[in-house]
C-alpha cells in the first residue's frame, strides 16, 4: 500500500511540529525515519496511523484518508515506544483484541514470536518489564500483518540480544510477507542495514529522502595531510571535519567520487554510515536532497 503525503503541516498552538511535508512511501519497502529528538517523527507516524489529524495538507494511504477510517486502520499498525496496552489485561487478552481488530492477524506468527521473546501469555500487562512490554508491542505489530507497519522506537526497552532477535525476526517476517515498514530509531548503526530507503526529518521538514545504498555513495570519509585535504576539498561540500597531528579527516557529501584516484593521491578513503550522516546533516542547514 502506497502512502502519499502532500504539503502536510501540523501545529500545536504556536509551535510547528511538521512544516509542509511531502513524502511518498512506496509499498513493500522498509523505511528508516530518522531525526533528532523533537524533529517531528512521532507526529508524522501518528498522522500516518490516523491517530492525529494534520492541520494542513493531504495524506492518502492506499488512496484514502486514514483519519477515523476503520476499514483502512485495520491495515495500519503503529507500535509506540511505550504505553501500547491497557494495564488490566493479560497478554492473551491483548492478542485476542489484536485478532479481532486486524483482519490479517496471524495466530501462528503471534505464538511463534511470543515463544521467541519468552513471553508468558498469562501475564498481566501492568506486570511487564520495559523489555517485555517492548517485545509484546513487536509481537502485535508483526502478527497483525498490516499492509503498513510502523514502529516508533519500541525496541528501546529491549536489551541488546533481544534487539538483534527483533532485527532477525523483522527481516524474516518481511521476506515471508512483504509490507511497508516504517522504523524510527536512535540506534541507527544497529538498524540501518535493514533499511531500503532513508528519510531524515529535521525541525519538522524533510531534509532528505534517498535510497540507502545510493545515499551512502553520495558520501565519503577522506583523510590525509591537512594541506592536501584542504586543497582537494575546495568548493566541495564538507559536512564535518576534524584535525589532528597535521592530518585532516573530512566527510564529503553530495558528490561523485573516484576512489581509485583518491587513493592514488595518498588519501585514506572510507565509507561513511547513516548514523554519521544523520548527525552531521542535521547540524547543517543548507542541504536538501530529494530523489
Amino acid at each position, binding site marked *: 500500500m502506497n502512502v502519499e503525503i502532500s504539503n502536510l503541516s501540523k501545529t500545536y498552538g504556536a509551535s510547528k511540529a511538521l512544516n509542509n511535508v511531502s513524502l511518498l512511501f512506496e509499498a513493500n519497502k522498509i523505511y528508516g525515519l530518522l531525526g533528532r529528538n523533537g524533529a517531528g517523527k512521532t507526529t508524522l507516524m501518528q498522522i500516518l496511523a490516523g491517530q492525529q489529524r494534520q492541520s494542513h495538507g493531504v495524506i492518502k494511504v492506499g488512496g484514502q484518508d486514514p483519519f477515523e477510517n476503520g476499514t483502512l486502520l485495520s491495515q495500519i499498525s503503529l507500535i509506540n515506544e511505550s504505553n501500547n496496552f491497557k494495564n488490566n489485561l493479560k497478554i492473551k487478552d491483548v492478542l485476542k483484541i489484536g485478532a479481532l481488530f486486524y483482519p490479517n492477524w496471524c495466530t501462528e506468527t503471534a505464538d511463534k514470536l511470543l515463544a521467541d521473546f519468552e513471553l508468558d501469555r498469562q501475564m498481566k500487562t501492568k506486570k511487564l518489564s520495559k523489555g517485555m512490554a517492548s517485545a509484546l508491542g513487536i509481537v502485535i505489530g508483526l502478527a497483525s500483518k498490516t499492509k503498513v507497519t510502523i514502529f516508533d522506537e519500541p525496541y528501546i526497552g529491549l536489551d541488546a540480544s533481544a534487539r*538483534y532477535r527483533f532485527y532477525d525476526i523483522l527481516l524474516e517476517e518481511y*521476506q515471508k510477507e512483504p509490507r511497508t515498514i516504517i522504523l524510527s530509531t536512535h540506534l541507527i548503526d544497529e538498524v540501518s*542495514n535493514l533499511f*531500503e530507503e532513508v528519510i531524515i526529518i529535521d525541525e519538522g521538514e524533510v531534509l532528505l529522502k534517498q535510497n*540507502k*545504498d545510493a545515499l551512502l*555513495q553520495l558520501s565519503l570519509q577522506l583523510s590525509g595531510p591537512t594541506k592536501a585535504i584542504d586543497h582537494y576539498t575546495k568548493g566541495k561540500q564538507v559536512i564535518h571535519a576534524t584535525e589532528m597531528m597535521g592530518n585532516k579527516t573530512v566527510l564529503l557529501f553530495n558528490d561523485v567520487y573516484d576512489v581509485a584516484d583518491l587513493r*592514488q593521491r*595518498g588519501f585514506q578513503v572510507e*565509507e561513511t554510515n547513516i548514523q554519521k550522516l544523520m548527525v552531521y546533516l542535521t547540524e547543517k542547514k543548507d542541504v536538501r536532497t530529494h530523489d
Partner: protein
Amino acid sequence: MTFHLNEDKPIFQQIADTIESSILEGTLAVGERVPSTNEFAKFYAINPATAAKGINLLVDEDIIYKKRGIGMFVAEGAPTIISAKRKSRFFHDYILPLKQEAVKLGLTDEDLIHLLKGAMK
C-alpha cells in the same frame, strides 16, 4: 567468504566481492546454485534490496546467470572473468599501497624486490 561486513566498501559491493571470492577459491563451482537474495539478506541481516543490488552487479558482468523460477547459478566463464578483473585491479589495490608505505619507510625498490622474492618462496 566474508562472515562480517565492514565499512570499507558499500555493502552491496561486499556481497558481490564475497561471491566472487568463493568462485575464485572454488567453494562455489561453475554451474552451482548461488544463494538467493533472501538467503544473503538473512545471513548478513541486511535489506533484501541491498543483497539484490550486489547480486545484480555479477549478473551484469555475466559472472552469474538467472534461471527464471529456479535460482541463480555460476556461469561457465565466471572464474576467468573474475581473475581478469582482479588482475587489472591488482596494481591499484595492492602494488600502489605497498609502494606508498615503502616510500614512507625509506625502503628502496631493491629492498621491496628482495622482500617479495622472500614472500613468494
